[in-house]
């Protein structure tokens, strides 16, 4: 920490402001991490580049809004119901359409999910307009703490803790449990795994459902911060793809760490050169691809 005052002096801002911005960066990074985690799981295990991820995230937020508006069910219920519902819809999608594409090139899955995303966003925009719908912060998490160097809203603190938990949990399940071992084996050699009497198609369906559920979960988390907006996913998904590419396609821990790190870098850009804050991630992506084409944590094919 001794270096910090020097760094902040060099950069011309007080250390308090720097800490504040670092924390904000981590919070935004947790959204990137959560979303890129879902993408990574789906890509790693299904080899599908899920462009509908942004739309699933947006639908998660909308489910939260509908639950509150029409069923009187608040945030905590939404946190449970929205991911389950979206997982179910995701699995139906996988069963009926995606499963026909596994033997084809990646590009077909990408085009199909991209088409779904456009249709879904178009329908929501037509029905609900583009300015978004309000969603309140749950009363238990409203207000905030004065940390001395910044005012930290309780809700943002919750977002960071919750998403770190989810990321670690997912990583643990896939890398450290028997179920995860089956999943990884099924992607390496489905025929062999099937020979052991394991229902591979069902596992793949469940995995896609899990990925879609993660997207919806991020959507519910985002609803109280941003407007519930038909375009919220489209705006974010491009950045998240960049995060996945930088982290290395299919690497779960890689995308989580990259998500948080890029959130911080983006946050710092917003202080020093805000005009570039929505391009900095792509600059980094270009550099990483030049040096390590498989991403920072990616395995060579």
């Amino acid at each position, binding site marked *: 920490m001794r270096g910090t005052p020097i760094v902040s002096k060099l950069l011309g801002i007080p250390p*308090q*402001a720097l800490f*504040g*911005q670092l924390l*904000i*960066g981590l*919070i*935004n990074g947790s959204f990137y991490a959560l979303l890129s985690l879902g993408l990574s799981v789906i890509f790693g295990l299904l080899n599908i580049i899920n462009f509908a991820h942004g739309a699933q995230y947006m639908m998660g937020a909308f489910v939260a809004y509908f639950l509150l508006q029409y069923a009187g069910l608040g945030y905590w219920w939404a946190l449970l119901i929205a991911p389950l519902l979206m997982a179910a819809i995701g699995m139906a999608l996988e069963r009926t359409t995606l499963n026909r594409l596994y033997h084809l090139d990646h590009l077909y899955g990408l085009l199909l999910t991209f088409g779904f995303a456009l249709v879904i966003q178009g329908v929501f*925009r037509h029905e609900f*307009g*583009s*300015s*978004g*719908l*309000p969603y*309140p*912060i749950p009363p238990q998490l409203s*207000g*905030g703490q004065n940390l001395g160097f*910044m*005012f930290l*809203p309780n*809700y*943002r603190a919750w977002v960071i803790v919750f998403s770190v938990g989810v990321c670690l949990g997912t990583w643990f399940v896939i890398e450290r449990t028997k179920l995860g071992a089956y999943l990884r084996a099924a992607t390496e050699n489905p025929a062999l795994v099937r020979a052991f009497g394991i229902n591979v198609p069902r596992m793949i369906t469940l995995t896609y459902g899990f990925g879609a559920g993660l997207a919806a979960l991020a959507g519910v988390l985002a609803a*109280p*911060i*941003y*407007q519930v*907006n038909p*375009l*919220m996913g489209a*705006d*974010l998904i491009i950045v998240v793809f960049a995060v996945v590419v930088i982290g290395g396609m299919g690497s779960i821990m890689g995308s989580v760490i990259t998500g948080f790190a890029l959130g911080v870098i983006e*946050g710092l850009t*917003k*202080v020093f050169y*805000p*005009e570039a*804050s*929505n391009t900095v991630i792509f600059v980094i992506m270009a550099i990483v691809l030049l040096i390590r084409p498989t991403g920072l944590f990616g395995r060579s094919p």
Partner: protein
Amino acid sequence: MRKHALIALMALALLAGPVHAQISDGIVKIGVLNDQSSLYADLAGQGSVVAARMAVEDFGAAAKGLKVEIIFADHQNKADVGSQIARQWYDAEKVDLILDVPNSGVALAVNQITRDKGKAFIVSSAASSDLTGKACSPNTVHWTYDTWALANSTGNAIVKTGGDSWFFITADYAFGHALERDTEAVVIKSGGKVLGKVRHPLNNQDFSSFLLQAQASKAKIIGLANAGGDTTNAIKQGAEFGIVKGGQNFAGLLVFLTDVHALGLEKAQGLIFTETFYWDLNERTRAFAKRFAERNRQIHPTMIHAGVYAGTLHYLKAVEALKSDDGAKVIAKMKEMPTDDPLFGKGTIRADGRKIHPAYLVEVKKPAESKYPWDYYKIRATIPADQAFRPIDQGDCPLVKK
């Protein structure tokens, strides 16, 4: 069937003969060019198309034998896309008038293209006061409002009530820069000071970083020189970061009715800003709003929609009087004729293209004060027409002889 249609068309052409004399290809073709899909789609978008159609119907174009056709396109807030559509419309599709065009960056590009092609351009959404200043054109009318009018009305009112130190959160493109520049001038002129500013990319999701910088500046007023989704997101996240509780206040320099609707009164209450039209002003505006909402998913008209309606109406009157749809001539005629429409009342268009009418300083009602759907504003003050806009000699418009 086809024969009948042909005969009907010929009859129509004969009947409408005199009017058609100098109308290019017999049709007045109007193109609504705006954001149909992104952050400005509710405040302009399809609503502007509805408003233009209503103006054509209310003008009674069909009964007068004038054939008017309306088309629309999405410029995606990209100047290159907008320019390309404008060129194609003018060159290939024989469009005579382009309407609306939110996003000052795109509007400035279309302004120049319209001038080069000798067509007509009526701006409702775009805000930059440069459209009637440095970039003014004999082919352009700037109808609804501009950055100078917003800055003058809102800026003055806020500095007078004690908000004398400002921090700007500005959208990083032509519109944000113009709004920040014009507001800063008003703040300094009224004895206030600007403590800092930060510029964010258009269509930004997360404002926490910028809000934190604004908080650290200790400025009394955080001026939001942005619009649409950017403004609502900043205000919503500002509440989360305790901006107002901490003693600072937001000045939404450009807020639309649809933004207030999206935020909800709970979050938007107390905001003070400037509009040149509110649907609940009088009987005539209410009647318009009712008809409009029925055709626009119950969304009530913003001042942009009102400007598109009134601008189209006045344009058609000029075309009728002139019996021509030649761009520069119609715009000249529009400037010559006094304006009169149900939404803005009586007014004029100046030599620099600036449409003149009163502006309203409004305050968003508390949830308890709102009695019916879309009952959102209290009118705090009316800025008379002759004070609402930048004096004609201060805009550096080359069309104005000094």
